[in-house]
């Protein structure tokens, strides 16, 4: 008897609970499903954003080395390292390299993104012309972008190899032997080749995005302009460019971030050399951390990179008015 009663109360409780659930609106139930779907993603964000940012900032105020890193993230870490205030930052600012490397990072981003944009826009306009015989080109245009950076580096190394690279062979064939050189090892040419690699890899992305933007411009805008007797340049300036504003912003911002933070294109092709002429902030952080064993100072430089990108993103958001 008593068992039955227990059962009853158990079921009635379930009933109350389920009727409570039923009373909730459909949207509330849906919201729970929504959160459940998002649940596995949230730890990932914590791991990629919150935790490394905090840890990076903490590290930048310590004298941590690789050994301190191997004890993990527990209390032992704080036993091993000493907090040294702003010393890492001071060391960076007084180190002659810092300003040179920072400037080079800016130069790389500025030159590469500008070239990629201009060349990508011209290619997008050409694609939009629908030239006969080139319909297939759109389909293969993204190939450079899908190739692993390490492979791209081998390909460019092979093409520019000192004695038997195809670039030097071509120069010899057209009688310009005096221009042949060890391209990646050359003080004058290593940096330009790095920029060419960036352009080769990323320019198609700009072209396709801008091409998609071009295709979505309503044709009647051009027709109206024609009626008004607008020249080709006026049409480009007052119809094409304004309509491309949004896709342009998106590709440029993405590539500023990607190029500034990119590490492997330079590290794998020149390692920052020759004599530091291609060293940028990203490769410097890696070298300091893993080759010079200066984790704290590397973290400080990484934090500076992060701040620069935050300022850039903030400015961008202000420009576009906060729409994502």
């Amino acid at each position: 008897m008593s068992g039955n009663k227990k059962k009853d109360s158990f079921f009635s409780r379930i009933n109350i609970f389920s009727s409570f659930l039923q009373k909730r609106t459909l949207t509330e139930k849906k919201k729970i499903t929504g959160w459940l779907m998002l649940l596995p993603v949230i730890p990932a964000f914590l791991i990629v954003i919150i935790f490394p940012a905090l840890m990076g900032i903490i590290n930048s105020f310590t004298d941590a080395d690789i050994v301190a890193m191997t004890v993990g993230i527990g209390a032992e870490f704080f036993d091993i390292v000493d907090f040294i205030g702003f010393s890492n930052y001071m060391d960076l600012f007084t180190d002659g390299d810092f300003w040179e490397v920072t400037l080079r990072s800016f130069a790389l981003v500025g030159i590469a993104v500008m070239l990629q944009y201009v060349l990508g826009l011209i290619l997008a306009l050409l694609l939009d012309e629908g030239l006969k015989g080139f319909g297939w080109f759109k389909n293969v245009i993204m190939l450079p972008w899908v190739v692993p950076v390490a492979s791209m580096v081998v390909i460019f190394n092979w093409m520019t190899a000192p004695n038997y690279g195809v670039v030097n062979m071509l120069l010899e064939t057209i009688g310009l032997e005096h221009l042949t050189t060890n391209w990646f090892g050359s003080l004058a040419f290593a940096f330009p080749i790095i920029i060419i690699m960036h352009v080769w890899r990323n320019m198609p992305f700009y072209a396709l995005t801008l091409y998609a933007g071009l295709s979505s411009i309503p044709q009647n805008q051009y027709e109206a302009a024609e009626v008004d007797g607008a020249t080709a340049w006026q049409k480009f300036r007052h119809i094409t460019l304004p309509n491309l504003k949004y896709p342009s912003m998106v590709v440029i911002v993405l590539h500023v971030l990607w190029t500034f933070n990119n590490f492997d294109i330079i590290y794998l092709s020149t390692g920052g050399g020759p004599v530091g002429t291609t060293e940028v902030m990203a490769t410097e952080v890696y070298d300091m951390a893993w080759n010079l064993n200066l984790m704290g100072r590397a973290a400080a430089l990484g934090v500076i990179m992060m701040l620069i990108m935050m300022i850039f993103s903030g400015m961008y958001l202000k420009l576009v008015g906060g729409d994502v």
Partner: protein
Amino acid sequence: MSGKSNEKIITLGKYLLMVCYTIFILAPFIWILYSSLRWEPNLFAGEFLANPGGLTFNNYFRAIAGANFGEYFLNTLTISFITTAVVTLLALLGGYSLSRFNLRFKNQIIMAMLSSQMFPHVLLIIPFFAVMSGFKLLDSYTGIVLTHIVLGLPFGIWLIKGYFDGVSTSLDDAARIDGLGSVGILFRVVLPVAAPGVAVTAFYAFMVSWGDYLFVSIISQSSSTRTLTIGLDNFLGATQIQWGPINAATVLTVLPTIVLFAFLQKWIVKGLTSGATKG
């Protein structure tokens, strides 16, 4: 009359420009493929086309036989396959959630995803190393796969969310009236329509994992977890570079990404550009 010949010159100029672009983008691929098929001594003869002994797969046999290539290939394949599967599934759920439910912190979450692109990976790798070391995951598939998942997920979700945004919610509503739950709607109704978006996300995740050098270089400590990108770098760092096998190994490293891309090409192009043009 002169206007017509002017137009002809302009058209000719356009074709010339297009040819330049084609050469710039495709020549490196053609040259590496061609070089990988030449006998090694012919590579150093300073001749473009002379190939005594004809073309050969000799470099490929040497690449596969030597220097852990098989092991690295298998490592890379396993790691990127698992990464791709997990990222695609999680991005599917997360992207759908962000696209369809009006959750409270929705905009903040989307902002956080985009801002993850802001963080220099060279800075991330330092805490990642500490975490992996703390959980004894250094030099393990698990450690590398987890890292790649976390790296690929934010942008993957953003891509797939952009695609879901473009799929009309009227389908969802109709299915809900038929009595399907949210998960049922996602997998039976929305997924088939949004397949291109899923393809792009999967391909992106695969690319992140297959091409990663930075994180593997720190987390991997022995040949049992080393991937192809590290292998290529080691080849290139040798004092006497063996160009024949390296060229072949490069082609083999590039090939899977190109084959996948060829299959998914139409969808990838659509998916990548849709995020940027929707506005």
